């Protein structure tokens, strides 16, 4: 039926009623009713023509759409009539929906969407798994796999179609003709990795089985390197590039979307390429990630049981080495999102709370406004408007507010998501984080859910009274609005309770973050510049060459003006765990078979390392320039290693046998104070070898320089010295030590400040709500207060009465929120550092903050109530 036909039918109904009504009027006149009364008499016997015509039109099915359009028209008009309310409500909704949508966008891409590989449901990561709970506490329950284990798993089990492996690597990339050197992040992938994932090269091909060998010299470029460094020229395939000074042939270019395992990876080489030959036989060198593809008709459990059985056999064969007893699976998504899952879920919960508070606030505003519109609603329902019509109209209003808020919110969230992604470090799968169909659907659901939540309660409450009762209720009758006041107070209580939970969570995270920030990593952190380099194995084959470079560099840097001290080591405190190795102590009785060997962080240090970084010597001596390649091997241990493994004895003169470093015993020459390898982690036992032992550690070396003034100003002069010594040597990670530490705190700071932002926002919303409720109550009770004052009630009494009225829901909400927080802090618990989840100071200060804010929010309307002039109040009655 067309619009035109609907119009025609409407006109027809009107005409029919009109003609029949006129007939009735004529008949009344014919019965002798005076003409001036005939019309009223006819109407009396006929009924309300407008209502009848509406009910008649309702017979025709298109009425639904008509109603919708009419509701829409009325709602738009109503919203425009009170622009202040509308803008406020839309803003609140936009903020809440926007924040929730942003978080959902990130959560969906990072936690929910499978990686874009072939049949991603059947892909699984397999890790070695120690059953000992104390190992699990140190996060060894998902331990990287040793190459020999991987090869045994692949050869001896049948539950998986195939298993592939990859490992971390980095290269210094140079061109054929003295182009700028560059340190590139690399991965070594087994030849079957790309077929297993279902990934093809966009140009060229992936690795072949014959290329996956120790001297394999094939390389694949990721799209970003291909575009950036080679200008997207496809003829690069088949040509050579130099990695660590060694020529590699480019066999293919990976697709643009392929950013696994992270977007920083620039090149892939075959898994075995460049590995020392003996390492493939080891069961205790854990550096490999294994991805397996499950066979179609095999369950994950049974396939894993097979791998577990193989692993247990390997464990029994290597009782003294750190070879785990079992294996454990992880999905690829879980594997990538490991560090961000908890904060993401927590923040999603927080924005959920914020959304709830926002909806309750809009509901509260609506209840307040419906008080002003009470007469309108009463008259309309008296004129025959059905209750469902009135509720539908109010819902339409909140729906409009929600839709406007939702559209604004989604636009906001696009910007917010970009900001979040660029600020949040180590967020995996960053490229795929974008608003897609599912996110839009989510936003739509949010819009409708918020509209229902915010609109239904006030709509039902404002129309609940019978028409006659409503008309009879005079404004003096405070009881008439009692139910609505109670509803407002309930909404407010819930709102405040949710705010308290958010405040407590934010407070705990903030305190934990401050604790982290003020942690002493155990060394000097002011005015320390660090930069890293990795000497190319091809140009620095002998320990002498390595030492010559390192010592020349130290000498040149120390000669620069403004440098207080310079030192060289594998890692500085606070920069991560780096390498850790198993060791034995020859002077001690052998470890019982079946127990894991002791394990400690392994670092290298030059003779001035400890004094430059102000790490105290507790016993013995520092290294000297005599502790170098070709001399007896020496080692310095940390206080914790001494305490753990040499309790009650003097470690000096004893020896450590570091398992991966051959058969030589290292004599302990000194004990130094503990340092933290990472802020927020407990100190671990550490051992230091002289950097001058000449090992060319592929992990690279870190130069740490203590300067007299702003350390970053020294980065260029130092890099110039390096370039003079070796123009092909790239320098990476130029940071101050403070920057390194802050980077490791980055996400803690981000989640703490986001939480704080959400909590403050909800506090503002809650206090606005509180202010609104009390203002409304004051207006409602003006007459009553006038009477009280006329009867001699002092102003202080009125002030106390109104304050009490406003503060009561605040206190209920506070109590409810504090009780709720006791449960909610469990979510935060594992993210806290040296902060108890039930920290009384936090709980107390949250309570105090809330009470102060509540008192301020209530004070203005309460004070206004106490200023009421009784004469005025009674007269306006």
């Amino acid at each position, binding site marked *: 039926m067309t619009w035109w036909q609907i119009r025609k039918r409407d006109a027809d109904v009107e005409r029919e009623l009109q003609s*029949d009504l006129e*007939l009735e009027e004529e008949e009344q006149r014919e019965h002798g009713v005076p003409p001036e009364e005939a019309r009223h008499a006819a109407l009396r016997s006929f009924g309300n023509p407008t209502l009848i015509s509406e009910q008649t039109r*309702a017979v025709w099915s298109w009425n639904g759409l008509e109603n919708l359009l009419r509701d829409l028209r009325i709602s738009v008009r109503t919203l425009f009539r009170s622009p202040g309310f509308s803008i406020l409500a839309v803003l609140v909704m936009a903020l809440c929906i926007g924040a929730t949508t942003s978080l959902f966008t990130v959560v969906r891409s990072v936690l929910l969407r499978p990686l874009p590989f072939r049949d991603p449901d059947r892909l699984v990561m397999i890790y070695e798994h120690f059953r000992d709970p104390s190992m699990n506490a140190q996060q060894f329950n998902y331990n990287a796999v040793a190459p020999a284990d991987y090869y045994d798993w692949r050869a001896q089990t049948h539950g998986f179609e195939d298993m592939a492996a990859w490992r971390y690597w980095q290269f210094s990339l140079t061109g054929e003709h003295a182009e700028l050197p560059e340190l590139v992040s690399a991965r070594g992938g087994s030849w079957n990795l790309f077929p297993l994932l279902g990934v093809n090269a966009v140009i060229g091909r992936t690795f072949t089985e014959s290329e996956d060998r120790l001297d394999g010299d094939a390389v694949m470029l990721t799209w970003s390197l291909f575009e950036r460094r080679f200008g997207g020229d496809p003829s690069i395939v088949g040509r050579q590039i130099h990695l660590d000074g060694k020529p590699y042939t480019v066999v293919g270019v990976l697709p643009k979307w392929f950013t696994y395992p992270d977007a920083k990876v620039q090149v892939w080489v075959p898994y075995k390429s460049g590995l020392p030959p003996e390492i493939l036989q080891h069961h205790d060198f854990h550096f490999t990630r294994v991805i397996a593809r499950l066979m179609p008709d095999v369950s994950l459990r049974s396939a894993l049981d097979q791998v577990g059985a193989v692993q247990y056999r390997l464990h029994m064969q290597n009782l003294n080495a750190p070879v785990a007893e079992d294996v454990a699976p992880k999905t690829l998504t879980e594997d990538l999102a490991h560090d961000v899952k908890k904060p993401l879920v927590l923040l999603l919960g927080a924005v959920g709370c914020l959304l709830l508070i926002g909806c309750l606030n809009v509901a509260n505003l609506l209840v307040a406004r419906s008080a002003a519109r009470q007469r309108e609603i009463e008259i309309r329902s008296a004129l025959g408007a059905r209750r469902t019509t009135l509720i539908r109209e109010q819902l339409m209003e909140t729906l409009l507010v929600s839709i406007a808020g939702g559209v604004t919110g989604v636009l906001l969230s696009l910007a917010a998501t970009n900001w979040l992604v660029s600020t949040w470090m180590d967020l995996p799968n960053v490229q795929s984080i974008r608003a897609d169909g599912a996110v839009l659907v989510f936003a739509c659901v949010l819009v409708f859910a918020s509209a229902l939540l915010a609109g239904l309660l006030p709509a039902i409450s404002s129309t609940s009274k019978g*028409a006659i009762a409503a008309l009879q209720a005079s404004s003096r009758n405070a009881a008439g609005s009692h139910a609505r006041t109670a509803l407002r107070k309930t909404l407010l209580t819930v709102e405040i309770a949710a705010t308290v939970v958010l405040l407590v969570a934010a407070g705990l995270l903030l305190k934990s973050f401050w604790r982290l920030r003020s942690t002493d990593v155990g060394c000097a952190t002011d005015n320390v510049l660090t930069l890293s380099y990795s000497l190319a194995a091809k140009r620095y084959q002998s320990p002498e060459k390595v030492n010559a470079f390192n010592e020349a560099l130290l000498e040149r840097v120390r000669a620069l003006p403004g440098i207080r001290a310079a030192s060289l080591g594998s890692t500085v405190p606070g920069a991560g765990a780096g390498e850790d190795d198993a060791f034995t102590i020859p002077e001690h009785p052998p470890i019982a078979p079946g127990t894991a060997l002791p394990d400690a962080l392994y670092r290298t240090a030059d003779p001035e390392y400890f004094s430059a970084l102000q790490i105290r010597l507790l016993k013995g001596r520092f290294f000297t320039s005599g502790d170098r390649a070709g001399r007896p091997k020496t080692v310095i241990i940390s206080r914790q290693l001494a305490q753990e493994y040499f309790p009650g004895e003097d470690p000096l003169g004893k020896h450590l046998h570091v398992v991966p470093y051959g058969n030589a015993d290292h004599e302990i020459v000194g004990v130094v104070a503990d340092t933290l390898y990472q802020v927020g982690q407990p100190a671990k036992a550490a051992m230091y070898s002289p950097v001058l032992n000449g090992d060319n550690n592929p992990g690279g070396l870190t130069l740490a320089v203590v300067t007299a003034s702003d350390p970053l100003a020294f980065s260029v002069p130092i890099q110039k010295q390096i370039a003079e010594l070796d123009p092909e040597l790239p320098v990476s990670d130029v940071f101050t030590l403070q920057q390194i530490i802050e980077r490791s705190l980055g996400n803690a700071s981000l989640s703490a400040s986001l939480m704080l932002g959400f909590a403050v926002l909800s506090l503002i919303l809650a206090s606005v709500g509180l202010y609104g409720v009390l203002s409304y109550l004051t207006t409602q009770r003006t007459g009553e207060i006038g009477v009280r004052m006329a009867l001699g009630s002092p102003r202080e009494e009125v002030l106390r009465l109104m304050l009490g009225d406003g503060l009561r829901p605040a206190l209920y909400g506070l109590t409810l929120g504090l009780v709720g927080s006791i449960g909610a802090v469990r979510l935060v618990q594992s993210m806290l550092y040296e902060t108890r989840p039930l920290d009384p100071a936090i709980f107390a200060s949250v309570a105090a903050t809330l009470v102060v804010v509540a008192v301020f929010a209530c004070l203005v309307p309460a004070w206004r109530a106490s200023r009421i002039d009784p004469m005025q109040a009674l007269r306006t009655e």
Partner: protein
Amino acid sequence: MANPKQQRAGLLQGTLDMLILRTLLYGPSHGHQIGKHIQRTTNEFLQMQHGSLYPALHRLEKRGWVVSKWEMAPNRNREFKYYRLTDKGRKQLVVEESQWKQMAEAVARIMWPAAEES
């Protein structure tokens, strides 16, 4: 003020359609006539409420039991909307009539059992 729910309570649910159809059996008539006819025939016992009458007429028209046409009234010299029974409407009237009979008999049997036995 009129409340639609109370109006319908005056008539047994569903009987209005039957009464309208039966009235139209005498020939085409407009809304006002139908209402007046039902009211007069029952000696004003059934108060015809227009709030139910017009929706009912349109409902019948929508179901195809009646058709409507604007026609000149013989004695008023004005056009009214006349409703006319269709064949489908006649059949419906028979159906509703027999249903109503069964209903009335069933009710009567419960209400006045003695009368039934005698």
